[in-house]
């Protein structure tokens, strides 16, 4: 099941030139031929379907998290959105354009950040990279200056603008990369593992920045990541992909509701020997005075469960935990659920 959820999509018509940020993938399939050595001489040829009949529509101004295990097809999808790869079957439209036929026009409207690979000029000061990109993307001087000033301010790039890129720390470089990707006012921004390896401070800064950009400039953002905190804090919508197919497409809350419909109440009892036998909840863990009580959100409310506990034992303190999105997604991958 893929691509059918109540998400408003802006369908782009051909030949319309205004900023159209819709991304449309229709029934896209991408295969790779992998040659593997078997034994000393022979090679065997296998066809790997990186992406299979994938359909996805992303509307203007959305911020979408695109997650999946390694090898699920995330990078392949992003590459097809940028025009690096072309699909074997199906169509891709970015801003109404086909990245395959109109690579240059498409790339003008797109900004990309690859977490692992740099797009900056390694030996030159950061400032020079920004300046060069102004030329490469043909940004008007005024606009470029204004953008740069804004980003320098938001991401605090000032202190190291004149440092050669090769001497920057990972956090600094990443902030530089994101700036570089946005200097030309792209309608769409793809980020491939942007917070990987960053320290907490840098991550926070990057997340705030992305939120601001999405909100103030209406940039459509597609974010692939393994860091589920990123997703939780940034994305209104979550697309989960595994083995080339979409497992889920909806909000984070929906993911939780569908795949992890339980919540956990953590209570600290007065008497550690007290036993809790509850009608609509289960004690899943017990440590000294603390009990973790799990209940299905459809079958009981937190208030009901608390009432049930208090009826049989005195409590000192309590809190409610939502299921860890990490666990949830892991369970999803394992189940390979398609529902």
């Amino acid at each position, binding site marked *: 099941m893929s691509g059918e959820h109540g998400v408003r999509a802006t369908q782009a018509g051909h030949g319309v030139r205004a900023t159209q940020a819709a991304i449309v993938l229709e029934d896209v399939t991408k295969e790779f031929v992998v040659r593997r050595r078997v034994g000393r001489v022979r090679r065997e040829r296998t066809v790997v379907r990186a992406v299979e009949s994938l359909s996805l529509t992303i509307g203007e101004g959305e911020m979408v998290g695109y997650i999946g295990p390694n090898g699920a097809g995330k990078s392949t999808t992003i590459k097809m959105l940028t025009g690096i790869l072309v699909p074997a079957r199906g169509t891709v439209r970015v801003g109404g354009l086909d990245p395959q036929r109109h690579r240059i026009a498409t790339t003008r409207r797109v900004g990309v950040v690859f977490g692992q690979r740099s797009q900056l000029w390694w030996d030159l000061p950061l400032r020079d990279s920004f300046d060069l990109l102004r030329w490469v993307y043909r940004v008007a001087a005024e606009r470029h200056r204004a953008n740069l000033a804004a980003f320098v301010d938001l991401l605090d790039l000032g202190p190291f603008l004149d440092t050669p890129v*090769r*001497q*920057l*720390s990972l956090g600094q470089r990443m902030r530089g990369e994101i700036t570089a990707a946005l200097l030309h006012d792209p309608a769409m921004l793809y980020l491939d593992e942007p917070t990987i390896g960053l320290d907490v401070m840098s991550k926070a800064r990057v997340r705030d920045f992305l939120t601001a950009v999405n909100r103030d400039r209406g940039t459509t953002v597609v974010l692939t990541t393994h860091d589920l905190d990123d997703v939780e804090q940034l994305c209104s919508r979550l697309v989960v992909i595994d083995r080339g197919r979409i497992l889920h497409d909806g909000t984070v809350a929906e993911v939780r509701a569908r795949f992890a419909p339980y919540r956990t109440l953590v209570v600290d009892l007065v008497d550690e020997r007290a036993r809790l036998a509850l009608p609509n909840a289960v004690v899943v863990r017990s440590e000294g005075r603390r009990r973790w009580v799990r209940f299905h959100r459809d079958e009981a409310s937190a208030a009901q469960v608390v009432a049930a506990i208090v009826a049989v034992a005195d409590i000192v303190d309590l809190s409610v935990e939502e299921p860890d999105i990490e666990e949830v997604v892991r369970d999803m991958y394992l189940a390979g659920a398609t529902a």
Partner: protein
Amino acid sequence: MFQRFSTYRGATVAGAVIGTTFGFLRAYVLVAVYRHHETIGSFDAVDAVTFTFVSQGFLPTIGIWGRLELSDRIRSGDVATDLYRPLHFQSYWLAQDLGRFAFEGLARGMVPVAAGALAFSLRFPTGRGTWALFAIALVLAEVVSFGLRYLVALIGFWVLDNRGFVQFGGFLTQFFGGVIVPVSFFPAGLEGACRLLPFQAVVQLPVEVFLGRQGAGALALQAVWAAALLVAGNALAARAMHKVVVQGG
């Protein structure tokens, strides 16, 4: 160690093709020269052509153009971890290179020689003794070649980017080793100078052994150079370790 040099079949083919091509080109040039003389520098035409193909055959094996991985590691700073290993630095790299040598072996070498034999008449060693000497000469050539490349790579500790020196070293070795023109072609003065240099031990001497013109004496000379270069390499490495400059982010 073998595993690291399991290159694609394609690369081996490429090396063989290039070796064969250059063998032919150089051979043709030499043949044109020999239209005027019977012998040059005591080589006759068959010697010269044989020289060309045999040398082209084993050039990749002894890594004559190669940069040691060491160069990259010095440049990136990774070498710092190598220095902590409980292995003798030079021996480690020598062993790696010998592994490469053993792997690349004679597969590529056979092709240019075979192709050359089809188109020209070549002179092959007559006795098993000569083949044995040649085999040893090849190994010694590899060690000498390593010694030279090792020294050049170590320069990377003092200079940020030693690619220029690596290239230069490669050219020097080729020219004075006799790859472009056999050393025996050089005018007397230049040839005399070359005979004093280690480069001849890399190509010229082994091929002369192959042609049966030199015997154990050449091997001894190679061994002397090999030893000298290894000692120098050790000394330089020691100095380098005193002065570890880590480069990179």
